């Protein structure tokens, strides 16, 4: 069934090649500026990844005029303000962010203050509040999960008020996403598994969500197939460039999918669990994903049935319900394989969540913005048994 309305807008140019992060001249020539400010973190710097990009910039006739490496694990409001000042005083004409979701989201928010000034919270809270394009922003992801290199949202943590602020705006979509598998080979197995499961959750929730549309479906299905075929290999052997590349591409495709059709209750539960018990986002998504699919089962049976063969399941001869069940089974097999590698916990009880905190997670899922996009109404009482099974 076709939706009444959908919009597809994905202006970010994507380039993929092993080693392309240090060979960007054609893309940078088109952007047409020379002075870049790098936003990243100390780990990425210590791994030599920033130098690699900087050398490539020099070969392309560009230069790095400043760096900010103090981005915390969560993108923070204070970092955004401090970093924006550094960018302004550096004489930069644009930004290159090199890192995972926190680095990229920080860079997006910094670009607002750098390009148009003002106060991030006072002037830009809301949806699509910007009125003109920002300065060029090139993103080089070093994880394969967040998809932020192609999404229109920056999520920033406000330490003072202890809340996550979302800034959705089409002008936040970066100009260029550079997918270079070499930039992800040093990602440890646990991070590879967790971020990969985050990407799978993006893709599955985008595919079954109420905003799903043919364009987002195509990207979601492509992402799911690549993840099912490559996540275990990338986790087991981080040097496998093909698996790393496939995961990078998949995460970006999942990002395109969910920036159009949003996420649902799995993300709602994961956000609540992360906020209450500091469980890493990808790990929480991995634990909740099969249970969220079961919670929504009646509303999404047909879509899950179409998903099962894409996930490598043989559905011949079975009913639609059986095929749908196999899609959930495929997720469980994947997480079990990652668990066997020691890369992923499978239960909330293994990640420090107390049993008496499960009701709070259910309530938190209801109060999360994603509940609006979930195919089944999020009712904490009805959701709680599924969370208990995830315990």
């Amino acid at each position: 069934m076709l939706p009444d309305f959908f919009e597809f807008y994905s202006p970010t140019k994507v380039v993929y090649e092993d080693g392309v992060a240090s060979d960007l001249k054609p893309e940078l020539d088109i952007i047409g500026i020379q002075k870049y400010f790098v936003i990243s973190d100390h780990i990425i710097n210590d791994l030599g990844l920033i130098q690699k990009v900087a050398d490539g910039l020099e070969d392309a006739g560009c230069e790095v005029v400043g760096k900010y490496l103090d981005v915390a694990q969560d993108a923070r409001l204070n970092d955004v303000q401090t970093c924006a000042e550094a960018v302004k005083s550096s004489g930069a004409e644009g930004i290159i962010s090199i890192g995972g979701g926190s680095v990229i989201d920080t860079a997006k928010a910094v670009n607002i203050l750098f390009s148009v000034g003002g106060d991030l919270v006072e002037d830009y809270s809301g949806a699509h509040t910007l009125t003109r394009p920002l300065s060029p922003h090139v993103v080089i992801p070093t994880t394969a999960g967040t998809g932020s290199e192609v999404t229109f949202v920056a999520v920033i943590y406000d330490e003072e008020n202890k809340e996550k602020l979302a800034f959705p705006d089409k002008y936040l979509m970066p100009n260029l996403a550079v997918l270079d598998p070499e930039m992800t080979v040093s990602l440890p197995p646990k991070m590879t598994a967790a971020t990969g499961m985050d990407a799978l959750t993006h893709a599955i929730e985008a595919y079954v969500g109420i905003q799903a549309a043919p364009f987002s479906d195509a990207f979601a299905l492509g992402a799911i197939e690549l993840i099912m075929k490559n996540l275990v290999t990338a986790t087991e052997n981080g040097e496998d460039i093909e698996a790393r590349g496939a995961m990078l591409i998949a995460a970006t495709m999942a990002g395109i999918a969910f920036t159009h059709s949003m996420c649902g209750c799995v993300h709602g539960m994961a956000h609540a669990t992360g906020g209450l018990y500091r469980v890493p986002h990808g790990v929480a998504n991995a634990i909740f994903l099969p249970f969220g699919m079961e919670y929504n089962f009646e509303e999404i049976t047909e879509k899950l049935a179409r998903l099962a063969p894409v996930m490598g399941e043989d559905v011949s001869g079975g009913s639609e319900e059986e095929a749908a069940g196999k899609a959930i089974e495929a997720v469980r097999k994947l997480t079990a394989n990652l668990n066997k590698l020691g890369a992923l916990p499978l239960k909330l009880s293994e990640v420090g969540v107390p049993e008496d905190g499960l009701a709070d997670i259910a309530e938190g899922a209801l109060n999360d913005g994603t509940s609006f996009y979930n195919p089944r109404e999020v009712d904490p009482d009805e959701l709680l048994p599924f969370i208990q099974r995830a315990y």
Partner: protein
Amino acid sequence: MGLFENSEKFEEVLGGFFRQLAETPQIADKLLKSNLIIRFNYTDPDLVIVVDCSGDKIDVRPHDTETKATVEMSMTADIAHKFWFGKVNLTKALTRKEMVAKGPIPKILKLLPAIKPSYAMYPKYLEENGYSQYNIH
């Protein structure tokens, strides 16, 4: 020209509906939990209404342009009217700027499940209060 002939009429219709919502515990209790102060800025015809959920009960204040709101929602009166029938695709409205939201978006989205029952209440309210000419069939 929009569906509503003037600001007074729109205030009478929508303000009255907001007051009914404020006295419906199923909805009001959840809105009060949000603690939000929402200012609706309507055009064609022009009207400002503040819905203040920061106290013990919901306070609906037309023409309040002074109070600092947590969230500001701007739209035409016709879009607002369609919204309360549950006939507005929020993502579409926001991306096409039919609605402009200023403030913490997740907090706004959180409210949507809470106000879902109001979509069934609105046509009934119009019918029962002599505003049936505005009903969308």
